[in-house]
């Protein structure tokens, strides 16, 4: 199960497991956003390489127009995936507690 929606403060809340079966849903949501956005991963348990592709495609589009993604509350496992992918150099990423 994967859910994505705006939170009360305008941040984008991702919950569950972002695997290959859920990427179309995630990409459709991300294609509608613009400017600077914060993704809250506090409730995101899992991301696959297909999910990384959604983030990368969105980041390239947003940075190209002066925006970008900040990703907060990243759990240790997903943080490892970001680190192995080199995503820590192309995204603003924060673990819980900053």
């Amino acid at each position, binding site marked *: 199960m994967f859910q994505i929606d705006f939170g009360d403060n305008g941040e984008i809340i991702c919950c569950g*497991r972002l695997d290959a*079966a859920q990427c179309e849903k995630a990409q459709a949501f991300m294609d509608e956003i613009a400017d600077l956005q914060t993704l809250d991963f506090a409730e995101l348990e899992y991301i*696959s*390489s297909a999910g990384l592709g959604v983030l*990368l495609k969105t980041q390239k589009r947003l940075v190209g127009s002066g925006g970008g993604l900040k990703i907060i509350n990243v759990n240790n496992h997903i943080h490892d*995936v970001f680190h192995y992918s080199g995503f820590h*150099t*192309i995204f603003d990423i924060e673990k819980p507690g900053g």
Partner: protein
Amino acid sequence: MQKKLNRSYDSLEEMYEVTERFFLNEDVEPSIRFPVHFVMEELFTNMVKYHPDNSNDILLAINTTDGAVTVSMTDYDVDAFDVTVDRNINTDAPLEERTPGGLGIHLIHKMVDSLEYDYADRCSTITFTKGLNA
């Protein structure tokens, strides 16, 4: 534990659930479960992606022996694709030089302790291990 999985991304949830039940029964730590799930799902996704019209199920086998989780995934009547070959992904590349895709094999190599590929009679078998104390 063995499980035949329908060749569809929709099987990812079933694969996760049956594997998670196995891990709970075997008392496997969450720190081990995440990378094993990750690698299984990357391998399964590749099998679906590159042979979408193949009607054969994909066979998953998983067990814990000798201090490690061992997972084997078998795909029938397919072309060879050796996942043990490093694709030389540049993870230091700046954003403008990156394109979506290609990270899966690189991440698999980062997360497993061993990775083997066997191909015979158009049957691919990928076996990986992850130490229980990693």
